[in-house]
């Protein structure tokens, strides 16, 4: 069975929750374990947040009531999922600023925006929670993050090891 979905949404922090819940609903019929579901949701959340903050520089993460009505979004994030039997492929793409040095960006704790008090763990989480991670980026053109995960294996990474 093959199934595919694609959504395009504004690069605002309100949509971070929407994106991960959409993916969770997309794979729900596969009866993923609680861990698998959490892994996928976290990875999607990291990728989408990266696009919003770093791709489009939309730094403000606020709940609706704190955001001014005059504030406008700066771009769109495209989320595409393909389910090939029990293999989930996720693609998160933006047409933002792009990443200068992908290898450096993927190092744990590395961040270009230390003033935001973020952890620099985004890519490390995507890598840890998914089976495969691929990042393609071009300066001024945007970034595509591709992730793959097998659903329904029941196994999960033991962090203590």
């Amino acid at each position, binding site marked *: 069975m093959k199934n595919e979905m694609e959504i395009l949404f504004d690069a605002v922090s309100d949509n*971070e929750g929407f994106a991960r819940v959409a993916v969770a609903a997309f794979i729900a019929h596969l009866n993923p374990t*609680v861990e698998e579901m959490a892994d996928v949701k976290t990875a999607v959340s*990291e990728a989408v947040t990266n696009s919003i903050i770093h791709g489009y520089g939309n730094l403000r993460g606020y709940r609706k009531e704190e955001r001014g009505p005059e504030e406008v979004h700066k771009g769109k994030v495209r989320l595409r999922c393909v389910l090939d039997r029990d293999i989930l492929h996720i693609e998160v793409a933006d047409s933002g600023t792009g990443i200068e040095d992908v290898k450096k960006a993927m190092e744990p704790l590395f961040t270009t925006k230390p003033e935001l008090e973020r952890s620099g*763990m985004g890519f490390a*989480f995507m890598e840890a929670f998914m089976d495969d991670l691929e990042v393609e980026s071009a300066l001024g053109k945007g970034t595509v993050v591709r992730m793959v995960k097998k659903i329904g294996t029941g196994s999960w990474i033991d962090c203590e090891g």
Partner: protein
Amino acid sequence: MDFQIIDNCLMIRLPEEIDHHEAGFICETADRYLLKEEVRNVVFDFERTRFMDSSGIGIIMGRYRKISCFGGRVYAIHLDRQIERIFKLSGLNKVVEVLNFELDAAGAGKEGQT
């Protein structure tokens, strides 16, 4: 979500989902309390929390940096399995004291450390 000061502790009851969207509000409100009141320690309560991404680590590390230079400590309570995993993966459990409270039938607090 609520913020409460008990003795010299700021108790932060975190929302159901912690992501970048919620982070700004949590950080700003927490910092307002830290500046205004005489707070030494911060306790993050995850009882209601079902989801957290790396933004949560930023929130906790940021508060830790602010209070640790004055000898304050950061505690985390009521972590579920997922959040505990994120704590371990990020090394947060080495900085923050994770406490697990188990209430027995009589309701008396029994404290055990993970």
